[in-house]
């Protein structure tokens, strides 16, 4: 019996797809990289997932886990063929109000968890821009961030436990509600491993109380420098806003043209800041931020007066990518991170790269933590454009690394940046990472050839011993 028939036997006929058109739909995530699956499986519970893993291992076919397919680094594109395991049917949700935690199925949509938790005065902190579509399983796989991780940290800081199907179809529960579980932090290792170590079926997440009050403010600046200086001075004053988001002039113009929110299109940069807490606290902090902005030449400081007003300000930020369609049919969204103090010079270099490749570039990013999202709008039908977009992207990442940054702040490595890992780490570092993968997935069934470039594990230690002997050793 072929493995697709075995999958049907375990999951039921209706939960396995293999028609060409169906396979085409699941051949890529939200990145630009397409793969080709041999089958698509929809497990209904953890036992189904264990069954799929056993079948895949027996037939030596790869497994690629997929949530809503919103990933931007091709982590869920089945570039090695095999079985795409779509976890969207895993929708259980148990909220424990007393302990402020929830066991959430991998297929639950991020925003649905947030809405459900809000009924109890609680919230799930990670809030990627795709939160109305992306799943908790995807958030866990990619250690997703979002505007609010400036103050609260990325997904890993909010995952207390995991139910995971490991190699051999072994189902384990890692972590729990009690703090500091003994032993190695396998849970922490699996978060952000992009489906290369197992398939997460449920996550125990931390919920935090809803904020009693909030102030959201929009500030217009005559230069990117003055907005970046404001960000630094706000943090130096001891205030860590819940979010600090920056949009450049081109992005503001595009968003305003679409949304008509009254955004200051004449500004060189617009800073969106949000502070949360007790009323007295947020008022004091908002006043402080406004003072700092004004002292840096802000031309306007607008504080949201109503919840609708606040929602509108956020809509401008969160729907920025949707507004791009006015400019061009396709866009390539980058994700890289630099130390915050290197933001301004990095931005200058990024604009220069775009101009040199004659590309339309806009920027909207998490200014508080130095996480850039340069966006290139283009028309893929234009000749040679794909190569230009790709080459410009590589240069942008190279500039970020040169400025002390990292390859990805929140989108992950996947396939998109896999081969750039060599620019970020030594052979020995990559070998260590490959060992982590190998210890957990010895057969290499989970999402093979993602995250780590080929040959990572084959590092030759021959030259190492001599090179690492301390100075002055007599050999």
């Amino acid at each position: 019996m072929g493995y697709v028939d075995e999958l049907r036997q375990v999951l039921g006929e209706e939960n396995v797809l293999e028609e060409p058109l169906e396979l085409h739909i699941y051949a890529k995530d939200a990145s630009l990289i397409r793969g080709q699956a041999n089958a698509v499986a929809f497990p209904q519970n953890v036992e189904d997932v264990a069954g799929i893993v056993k079948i895949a291992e027996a037939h030596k076919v790869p497994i690629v886990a997929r949530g809503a397919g919103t990933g931007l680094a091709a982590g869920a594109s089945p570039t090695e063929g095999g079985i795409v395991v779509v976890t969207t049917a895993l929708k259980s949700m148990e909220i424990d109000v007393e302990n402020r935690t929830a066991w959430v199925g991998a297929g639950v949509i991020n925003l649905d968890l947030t809405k459900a938790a809000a009924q109890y005065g609680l919230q799930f902190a990670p809030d990627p821009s795709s939160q109305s579509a992306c799943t908790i399983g995807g958030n866990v796989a990619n250690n997703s961030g979002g505007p609010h991780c400036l103050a609260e940290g990325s997904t890993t800081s909010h995952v207390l436990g995991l139910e995971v199907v490991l190699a051999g179809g072994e189902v384990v529960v890692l972590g729990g509600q009690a703090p500091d579980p003994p032993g190695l932090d396998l849970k922490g290792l699996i978060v952000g491993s992009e489906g290369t170590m197992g398939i997460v079926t449920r996550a125990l997440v931390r919920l935090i109380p809803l904020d009693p009050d909030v102030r959201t403010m929009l500030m217009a600046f005559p230069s990117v420098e003055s907005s970046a200086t404001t960000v630094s001075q706000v943090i130096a004053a001891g205030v860590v806003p819940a979010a600090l988001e920056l949009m450049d002039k081109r992005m503001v113009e595009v968003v305003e043209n679409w949304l008509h929110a009254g955004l200051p299109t004449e500004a060189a940069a617009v800073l969106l800041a949000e502070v949360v807490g007790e009323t007295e606290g947020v008022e004091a902090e908002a006043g402080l931020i406004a003072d700092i902005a004004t002292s840096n030449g802000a031309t306007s400081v607008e504080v949201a007066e109503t919840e609708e007003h606040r929602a509108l300000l956020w809509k401008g930020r969160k729907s920025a990518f949707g507004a791009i369609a006015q400019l061009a049919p396709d866009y390539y969204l980058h994700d890289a991170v630099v130390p915050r103090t290197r933001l301004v010079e990095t931005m200058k270099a990024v604009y220069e790269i775009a101009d040199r490749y004659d590309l339309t570039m806009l920027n909207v990013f998490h200014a508080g933590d130095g996480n850039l999202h340069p966006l290139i709008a283009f028309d893929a039908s234009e000749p040679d454009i794909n190569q230009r977009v790709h080459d410009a992207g590589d240069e942008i990442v190279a500039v970020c690394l040169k400025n002390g940054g990292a390859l990805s702040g929140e989108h992950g490595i996947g396939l998109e940046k896999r081969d750039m890992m060599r620019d970020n780490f030594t052979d020995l570092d990559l070998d260590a990472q490959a060992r982590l993968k190998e210890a957990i997935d010895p057969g290499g069934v989970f999402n093979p050839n993602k995250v780590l470039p080929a040959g990572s594990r084959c590092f030759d230690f021959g030259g190492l011993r001599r090179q690492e002997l301390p100075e002055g050793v007599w050999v």
Partner: protein
Amino acid sequence: MTAPPVHLARLETDVPGAPDAPLKLVPRNPQDVASILRHASDKGLNVQVWGGGTRSGFGAPPEPDIVMSMQGLVEVEKWEPDDLTLVVGAGASVEVIELMLSERNQTAVLPEVPGASTIGGVIATGASGFRRTRLYGTRERVLEATVVTGDGRIIRGGGRVVKNVTGYDLPRLMVGAFGSLGVVVSVCLRLWPAPPDRATVTVGTADDAQRVARPLAVLEDRESTRVFIWGTTADVAAKAAKLDGDVDEGHLWPSDPDGEFGWSLRVPPALTAEAVGHLRDSWDFVALHGVGELRAASEGLDGASELRGWAEAVGGHLVVTRAPVGGLDGFDPWGGSLPAIDVQRRLIAEFDPARVINPGRLPGGL
């Protein structure tokens, strides 16, 4: 034991406070650490890594062949206040580093009452500060780690930026690993800016703390229950008024519980008050409400088995963090069982194949 090779003998120094061992070595740099661990791996020797003695009685260490003190790896390599990052040697004292950071109104949110603890010791043992209630634990502080594996490879994971998903999360894996994978030699820590004002408010019960949003910590000990707050002056004043208790300026952190045996009770957060109720009157303790952690001390281990039974039944643990030599008398310092222990073994085998660093410290015989 045969004499060490010449290049290691040059690192021999007395290490005050450290346990006795045939060889006591003070490496000066990561390369020295690598040499020592390679030597130990080749000869099958146990290495006890010595920081400041953070939870040195934790687990069940065998007699070490080599004590390796981290006191030579204390350099502050890079402090970028505007980036909220600090790169520092693992042997640096938590107290000294926090004092330095406070000059620019910053903190690494490491344990507030660190004693002689080093940064490496805090990371290896997974010890967290009281402010974990609001700012989360030590694992959320470590952005980058440079590690020497048991077989002497120098590797780095993570990066020097506050947000990063580049590759597998090696830095967090080191937290609480007791050196089983390797010795952390330097780290990049995420810093936090300290707001201008802070106060400690004594309240009647931990429930009173719910009158304010997300305090830094709510701590109960034998003396009192205190709520720790910080923020702008207006914010602190407003919170203090809502808490309606005795207000002290600054943060008056409780001292470590006093007693021969130190242990940690970890339960779901909502059971913290119930856990306090299970303690004997003679046991000293600090309870972290909202976290589910109790740090306690006692003169013996009478009653610890029953308490562990209760903790494990509710999904928690009781872990011995300090014990006099020979004092455990068969009592398993960790208790419970580990999930995916085969995976944990394979991970350790990849990094410390001869199992030379702190063997026997982790649960499950790892």
